C-alpha cells in the first residue's frame, strides 16, 4: 500500500543508479540505429548523411531475405510442435493420475538449464552423419543413417526440443491452478472423460497455450546457439546467424548487421503485439474462489501409456543428449567408444594442457563469480528503488533495466559490441572487464525480473517494525530485508552465474585470445574442427552448470526451510 520515503539527502544513491543505468543500456541502441542508418565504420564517428541503403541492400540480397524466411519457418514449426508436446506432458503430469511423472518431471527442464548452444552440441553427438550415436546404431541395424543433424530437419528437431520447456513452464502452472470442480461439474452433467478433457480442460487451457506458443516463437526467432552449430554446417541462412556472419566477413559489414538487428527486433515486437491482441480478453480466471481444490482425473490402463510417452520423451530430449556428449568426451578414439579400453580422460587431459582452454575457464570463472555478484547487488538496488521507495524516476529505472531483455540477445550483443569499440580503451577492451561489463548490460533485466518477486514477497511491515524499533534505513536494509532475502540472493546468484557462464552472442563478438571465455572457446575449437576437445570442453561446462544449479537449489531451500516464511 504505502511506501517508505527516501529522505532528500539519500537520493544520491538512486540518482547514481539512474545515470549508471542510462550509460549502460541506452548507447547500445543508439549505436545500432546510427550504424544502420549511416556509413559509419569502426574507428570513426563522422556522420555525413543518413541513408536507408543498408536496409535496401538487405532486402535485395536473396540470402538475407531467405534467412528471415527460414527463421520464421523454424520458429513457426518448432514452437508449434514444442507447445503441443508441452501441453500434453503438462496435462499428463498435473491433471492425470499417471504414476512417477511428478518425480521425473524436473528432468524436462534440462534443455533450458544447459544452454541451447550446448544442447545443440550434445545433439550433434547423436545425429552427426559420421560419428552420431543414433546414426551409427541405425546404420548397423537398418543399414542406413537416420538423419543428419546439420539440416533443416535437424534444426527444427533441436529447436523444438529446446523450446518445449519454455511453453511447459507457462502451461503447467495453469493446470496447477485449475479447479477440479470444473471437471467434476462436467462429469456430473453427463459428459464422459474424453469429452470433459477436450471441452473443458483443454478448451480452458487454450489461451494459456497460445501465450506459451508465442513465447516459444519469439524465443526461437532470436536463438543463435542452435543455428550456429547446426545451420552453419548445413549452409542454411538464419537471421540471427546472418547478423553474426556479417560481423565476421572481411571486411566486416557492421552497417548491414545493424540493419538486420533492427529488422528482427521489429519482427519480434510485431509478433509480441499480435500475441497480446489475440490473447487479450481471452484469459479467464479459474482460481480465486474460496474452497479451491486441486485435483486430477483418474485414468485406468491408459495412464501407463501416458507414462510410457512421457518417459520416452524425457529420455529422448534430456537424457540421451547428455549421455551422448558424456560418452564422446570420454572416448579415447574418434567417435563413440566401443570397448572399455577406449574410455578415458585423454580428451580432458589434452584440453587442460591447452592455453586457450585454461585461459577461457579462468576468465569465465572470474567473470561469472564477480560479475554475477556485482549484478546481483545492482539489480537488488534497482528493484529496491523501484518497489520500496518513492524516488520520482523509479518507473523509468524499471523500464530502462528491462530494455536489454526486450530485444533478441544477438541484437543487444551487437549494440554493446559497437558501443564498447568506441568507449573502451584497448587495454580494457582486451581484458575480462569488457566481457564482464557487456554481460552486466545484457543481463540487468534478467536480474531485476528474478529479484523483484523476491522483494515483493517480503511484507513491508517487517521493515516498518525494524524502523520503529530504531533502525535507520541502512540498518533496515542490512538487518531485515537483505537477511530475509538471502535464499533469493543465493538462487538469483546461481541463476546469474549460470547465465554468465553460458552466454554466447556477446562472448563470441567480444572475446579475443586475451580475454577468451568458456563458451566462445568451445565455439573457437568447433570452428577449428577439433571435435574431441570441443565435446570435452562442452561436457565440462554442462557439468559446471548442472552442479551450480543443483547446489544453489539445495542451499536456498535449506535456508528457506529454516525460516519458513
Amino acid at each position: 500500500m504505502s511506501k517508505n520515503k527516501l529522505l532528500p539527502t539519500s537520493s544520491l544513491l538512486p540518482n547514481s543508479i539512474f545515470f549508471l543505468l542510462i550509460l549502460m543500456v541506452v548507447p547500445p541502441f543508439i549505436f545500432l540505429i546510427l550504424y544502420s542508418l549511416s556509413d559509419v565504420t569502426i574507428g570513426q564517428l563522422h556522420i555525413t548523411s543518413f541513408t536507408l541503403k543498408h536496409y535496401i541492400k538487405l532486402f535485395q540480397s536473396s540470402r538475407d531475405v531467405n534467412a528471415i524466411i527460414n527463421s520464421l519457418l523454424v520458429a513457426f514449426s518448432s514452437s508449434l510442435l514444442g507447445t503441443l508436446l508441452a501441453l500434453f506432458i503438462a496435462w499428463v503430469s498435473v491433471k492425470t493420475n499417471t504414476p512417477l511423472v511428478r518425480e521425473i518431471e524436473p528432468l524436462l527442464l534440462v534443455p533450458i538449464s544447459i544452454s541451447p548452444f550446448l544442447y545443440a552440441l550434445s545433439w550433434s553427438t547423436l545425429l552427426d552423419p559420421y560419428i552420431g550415436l543414433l546414426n551409427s546404431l541405425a546404420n548397423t541395424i537398418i543399414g542406413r543413417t537416420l538423419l543428419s543433424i546439420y539440416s533443416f530437419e535437424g534444426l527444427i528437431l533441436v529447436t523444438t526440443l529446446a523450446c518445449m520447456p519454455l511453453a511447459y513452464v507457462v502451461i503447467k502452472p495453469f493446470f496447477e491452478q485449475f479447479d477440479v470442480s470444473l471437471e467434476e461439474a462436467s462429469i456430473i452433467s453427463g459428459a464422459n472423460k474424453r469429452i470433459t478433457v477436450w471441452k473443458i480442460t483443454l478448451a480452458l487451457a487454450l489461451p494459456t497455450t497460445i501465450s506459451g506458443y508465442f513465447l516459444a516463437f519469439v524465443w526461437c526467432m532470436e536463438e543463435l546457439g542452435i543455428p550456429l552449430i547446426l545451420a552453419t554446417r548445413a549452409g542454411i541462412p538464419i537471421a540471427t546467424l546472418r547478423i553474426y556472419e556479417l560481423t565476421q566477413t572481411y571486411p566486416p559489414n557492421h552497417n548491414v548487421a545493424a540493419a538486420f538487428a533492427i529488422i528482427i527486433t521489429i519482427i519480434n515486437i510485431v509478433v509480441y503485439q499480435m500475441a497480446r491482441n489475440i490473447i487479450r480478453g481471452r484469459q479467464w480466471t479459474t482460481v480465486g474462489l474460496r474452497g479451491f481444490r486441486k485435483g486430477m482425473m483418474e485414468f485406468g490402463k491408459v495412464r501407463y501409456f501416458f507414462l510410457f510417452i512421457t518417459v520416452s520423451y524425457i529420455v529422448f530430449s534430456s537424457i540421451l543428449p547428455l549421455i551422448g556428449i558424456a560418452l564422446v568426451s570420454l572416448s579415447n578414439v574418434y567417435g563413440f567408444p566401443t570397448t572399455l579400453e577406449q574410455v578415458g580422460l585423454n580428451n580432458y587431459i589434452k584440453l587442460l594442457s591447452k592455453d586457450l582452454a585454461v585461459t577461457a575457464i579462468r576468465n569465465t570463472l572470474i567473470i561469472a563469480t564477480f560479475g554475477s555478484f556485482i549484478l546481483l547487488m545492482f539489480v537488488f538496488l534497482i528493484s529496491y528503488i523501484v518497489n520500496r521507495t518513492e524516488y520520482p524516476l523509479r518507473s523509468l529505472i524499471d523500464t530502462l533495466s528491462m530494455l536489454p531483455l526486450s530485444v533478441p540477445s544477438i541484437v543487444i550483443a551487437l549494440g554493446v559490441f559497437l558501443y564498447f569499440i568506441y568507449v573502451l580503451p584497448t587495454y580494457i577492451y582486451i581484458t575480462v572487464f569488457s566481457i564482464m561489463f557487456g554481460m552486466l548490460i545484457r543481463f540487468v533485466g534478467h536480474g531485476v525480473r528474478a529479484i523483484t518477486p523476491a522483494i515483493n514477497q517480503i511484507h513491508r511491515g517487517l521493515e516498518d517494525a525494524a524502523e520503529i524499533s530504531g533502525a535507520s534505513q541502512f540498518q533496515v536494509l542490512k538487518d531485515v530485508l537483505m537477511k530475509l532475502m538471502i535464499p533469493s540472493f543465493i538462487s538469483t546468484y546461481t541463476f546469474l552465474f549460470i547465465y554468465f557462464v553460458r552466454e554466447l552472442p556477446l562472448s563470441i563478438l567480444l572475446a579475443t585470445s586475451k580475454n577468451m571465455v568458456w563458451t566462445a572457446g568451445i565455439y573457437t575449437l568447433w570452428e577449428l574442427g577439433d571435435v574431441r576437445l570441443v565435446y570435452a570442453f562442452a561436457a565440462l561446462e554442462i557439468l559446471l552448470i548442472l552442479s551450480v544449479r543443483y547446489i544453489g537449489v539445495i542451499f536456498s531451500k535449506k535456508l528457506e526451510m529454516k525460516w519458513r516464511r
Partner: protein
Amino acid sequence: MEQIIVCRNLLKRFGETIAVNHVNLDINRNEIFAIIGPSGCGKTTLLRCIAGLEKPDKGQIIIDNKVVFDSDKGLFLPAHMRGIGMVFQIFAVWPHMTVFENIAYPLKLRKMPKEEINKRVKDVIELVGLQGLETRYPHQLSGGQQQRVSLARSLVMQPKVILFDEPMSNLDAKLAEKLKIDIKILIKKLGITAIYVTHDQLEALTVADRVAVMREGKILESGPSIEIYTKPKHPFTAEFVGVSNKMSGKVINFINHNYVEMETEIGKLVCDKPYDLMLGDRVAVYLRANKIKIYPYQNLNLVKQNRNLFEGRIKSKSFTGESFIYIIDLNGVELRAHTPPEVNLSEDIKVVVTFEPSDVIILKGE
C-alpha cells in the same frame, strides 16, 4: 490533564485520495485511546503518520513535548528516531530471528551492554508470558504467541507511547479475547500511553479509555468509550458503534421540561430531552437493539406504567449463544432486539415492546 500526543491539522494524500483530512487529535498521558472506523477510513494512515512511517503533507505532530513533524518548518523526524513502540496487524515478527533476537533487536540498535539486554529481554518476556520460548523461531509459534513477541519487542525499549495497528485481526476470536484484556492490564500497569486502531468497535470499547470515530479521513467525534456508545453525537457513530434501529422523528410535544414526545414510523414515543430541540424539529432517532425489552402480551400488566409501550409480533428469532436476536414487526416496521438468553419467546406470538426514554438517542437532521 497533560497531553502527550498532539496532531494539528494533519493532512495526508495518496495521489488523488485524501487519507487523512485535516485531523486534530489530543491524547492524554497514560490513556488508551482507540481510533475506530470502517476499512479505508484513514485510521491506519493516521497511526502511521504518528509513528513516522508515513510523512504527512501538512500539519504538525508533537510527541511528548517534542515536535516530530511540522510542515511549515519542513521538519520530519523519521520513525527510527521517535522512540515509540508499535504492534502490527501482520505481527511483523522477523522470521529469521529467534524470539529472543526479535525482542533484543531494538536494544542492540541502541548499543546497550549485553547484560542489560539480557535482563531487559528476560523481564519483558515474563511480562508478556513467553517464558521458555526464547530460542524458538516465529514459525514454531502460534499466532497469539507471535503477537506477544511483537508486543514484547515494542515494550522492551520502555517507550512512553505504543501504537497498535489492528493487532487482533489476524487472530482467532478466542485468542483475541484474552490478548486484548492482557494488553489493557499491561499498558495500565506500565503506565504508558497507547493508541489502538481497530475496525472492531467492541474491541475498541473493551480496551480503550477514550475512542475516536473516523470516516473518510476525518475524525467525527471522540470521547470516553461509554459516551461514544451511549451518547453518540454523530449519526455515523450511532450506526457504526453497536447495533441500532434507525427511525426518523418529528418533535410534537414537550412533557414537563424533561421529556420530549416524538412522532416516528412506529408511533409516538417519549425520550429524555436533549439540549435545544424545538417543536416541529426533524430528528434521527436511534434505538439500541440491546436496550429493547420484550414481554409476552399477557404480561402487559407488569409494564403498564412504562412510558414507551408498543404492540408487536415476533417475526423471527435466532440464537447466537450469548443472546437472542428477535426481529419484531411493529405496525409494519421491523425492529431488531437483542435479549439475554433467558428471554426465550416463541416466533409469531404477540408481544409488548418497551424501552426507557433515556435509552433513545436523538440526533439532529434526518
